[in-house]
């Protein structure tokens, strides 16, 4: 005690004990993410002369971060392979789109509803979770891989259903003019194109990327806190136990069916929630937005990021989203200008069979994405920032053959 009195007064910086805290890898990633998320909009505005394009991309990436965090509960925590995650995303998005636009005016009930976004976000969540429960209840008894196939089937059915019931959903024509979120008041300023900093009341999000960016930042932050809590709770441990050994988990008194159902339902509710946000932020919802490729993309995000590790899947989601929606689309013009600047500008022109460098780059993007996936997976099979569990698993796997022999000897 006397030591403390004698010690010199410590600075605020020292009292944060950053050096000790950052020794933990996850904390470091969270800290870095937080820093980037806060600084990114300012830098992006500054470097691109006030263009909010990148902020919009980042805002949409946030939707996928939500999806990845949710799917991680199902796949990473509970070990259930879900290949139809986009179905719940569709359910959330359509729930909001139908009840917050003019769409139902043309439907057989001839009445348009405009429920507020803040309410419908949770309605979307509940409906998606219920759909998850209804699908999960009869199928979660099945052996692991069959669940994957059932979810795959469900993921194929749902968007098609939304497409086919076109008198309600507009089918392939999509639902447009979806209500944007509004707030009683909001701060606006030069960054959003206004002349000066002022308070707008009431405030509509309209198409202001910064407002959406702030909103999704808050939603993702809340989601991270909640899922972190879950992981370190009774339920989180039960999920892990089921993932490790279902028979032993049941023998310890864990009701495996309801526990898995909870994981499945929570995953679905994240997806439904994200879906409602997606509908509001894009203002347009079409069956094509929820195809199998979306489920696969989210799965790729969490496996690449490191299954089971929340910071890992966030990094994975952001990485994959930016590869798909920023790096690959911008590659052709970048390659063209590079060619011009190093004196190979002639390649840019189309001639005979050669479609021009830009177009050719465009043509290889699919191939390139495949190559990126395969090589990333080969280099880091456990993902970028795996949970410690996965890291261990891989370490042990190398010694597996000897152990099989030992087990044989014991039996």
């Amino acid at each position, binding site marked *: 005690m006397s030591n403390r009195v004698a010690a010199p007064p410590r600075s605020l910086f020292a009292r944060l004990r950053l050096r000790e805290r950052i020794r933990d890898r996850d904390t470091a990633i969270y800290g870095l993410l937080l820093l980037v998320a806060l600084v990114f909009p300012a830098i992006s505005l500054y470097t691109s002369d006030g263009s909010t394009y990148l902020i919009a991309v980042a805002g949409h990436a946030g939707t996928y971060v939500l999806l990845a965090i949710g799917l991680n509960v199902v796949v990473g925590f509970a070990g259930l392979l879900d290949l139809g995650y986009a179905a719940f995303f569709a359910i959330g998005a359509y729930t909001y789109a139908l009840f917050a636009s003019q769409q139902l005016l043309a439907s057989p009930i001839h009445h348009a509803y405009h429920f507020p976004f803040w309410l419908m976000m949770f309605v979307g969540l509940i409906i998606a979770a219920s759909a998850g429960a209804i699908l999960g209840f009869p*199928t979660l008894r099945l052996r692991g891989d069959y669940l994957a196939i059932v979810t795959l089937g469900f993921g194929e059915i749902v968007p098609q259903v939304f497409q086919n019931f076109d008198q309600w959903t507009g089918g392939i024509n999509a639902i447009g003019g979806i209500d944007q979120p509004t707030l009683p008041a909001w701060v606006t300023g030069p960054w959003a194109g206004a002349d000066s900093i002022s308070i707008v009341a009431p405030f509509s999000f309209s198409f202001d990327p910064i407002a959406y960016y702030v909103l999704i930042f808050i939603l993702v932050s809340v989601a991270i806190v909640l899922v972190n809590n879950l992981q370190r709770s009774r339920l989180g441990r039960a999920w892990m136990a089921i993932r490790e050994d279902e028979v032993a988990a049941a023998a310890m008194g864990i009701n495996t069916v309801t526990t898995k159902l909870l994981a499945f339902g929570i995953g679905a509710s994240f997806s439904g929630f994200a879906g409602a946000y997606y509908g509001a932020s894009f203002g347009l919802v079409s069956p094509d937005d929820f195809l199998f490729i979306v489920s696969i993309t989210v799965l790729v995000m969490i496996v690449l990021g490191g299954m089971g590790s929340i910071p890992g899947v966030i990094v994975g989601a952001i990485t994959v989203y930016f590869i798909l929606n920023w790096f690959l689309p911008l590659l052709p013009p970048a390659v063209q200008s590079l060619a011009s600047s190093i004196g190979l500008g002639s390649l840019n022109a189309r001639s005979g069979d050669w479609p021009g460098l830009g177009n050719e780059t465009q043509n290889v993007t699919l191939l390139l994405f495949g190559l990126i996936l395969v090589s990333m997976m080969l280099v880091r099979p456990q993902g970028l920032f795996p949970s410690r569990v996965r890291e261990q698993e891989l370490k042990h796997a190398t010694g597996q053959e000897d152990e099989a022999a030992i087990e044989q000897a014991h039996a």
Partner: protein
Amino acid sequence: MTFTDYGFYVLCGTAIVLLATQAVLDPRTFFQVLDFGIADGAIYALVALGYTMVYGIIELINFAHGDIFTLSAVIGSAILGFFTVSENTFSLTEFVTLLLVFPVVMLMIGGINVTIERVAYRPLRNAPRLAPLITAIGMSFIVEGVMYLWHGSAIIHFPDLLPHGPGFQTYIGGVFFTFKDIFVIVAAVILVSLLAVFINASKLGKAMRATAQDRDAAQLMGIDINRTISATFFIGAVLAAAGGIIYGLYFNNLDYHLGFSVGLIAFTAAVFGGIGNIPGAALGGLLIGLVKAFSDNYVGSRWTHIIVFSILIAVLVFRPTGLLGMRVPEK
């Protein structure tokens, strides 16, 4: 008999009653659709076999398999492009070229699939289970990407080589049969029979079955696991390649993205028959072909996708191991 068994029989019974009604009301249409469904199903069966064999041996959903199927049709069409084949007459030239194209493409595709396994799946055999699934998805994009680079998103024409037109079609009881239908069905039956003989009688076939049962035990018995797995990928691809060329000859049109939907449905067929079960995959493919044909005709093609996958879910709920799958107690 358990509740789920009842559910399964009720499901089957309903389907049979509905179809039988149609068969009585309008036998011509019914048998016409049946004919088409069998031909279509035969192609799915060939693709489904590759899924089921790979899954049986390394428990991987090989997402690239459908694209391998498409690639074989694309390569086949390119090779046929070299020869000056005529689409309107079926002479010795066409016959010989076809006879040549089949083995060449089958070997090429077999080699490609073995390479894919070697490069993208084998290094991850001891990795977390989802890692090879992701590389499979990646390989699917790569194969599609190659085809896209080659042909873009345009429709790729496959030469219409099989004899058709008057003389190669007939009406039996008002049902229209073409040589093409017969060709597809006969070719598939021959290939599946060859596979069955191979799996049951050859040493490699036995090694494949043993490895699928218990990889560690098979290894202790002196089976070369890597060679066996390569062989599985090779044979799966050979069947898919045959399926791809047959598809090309039958439908004559395809695009780089075809493998995605065919693969999804063929995989469903494999699950339908009991994943890992070889006769099951053949039966599953056939049934899926029939379901698709009947649904396209009686319900409307935009509902087909929903019907196929609803049946898939119902089958898994009521008969979790598929039609021919054995009930395996959980270890």
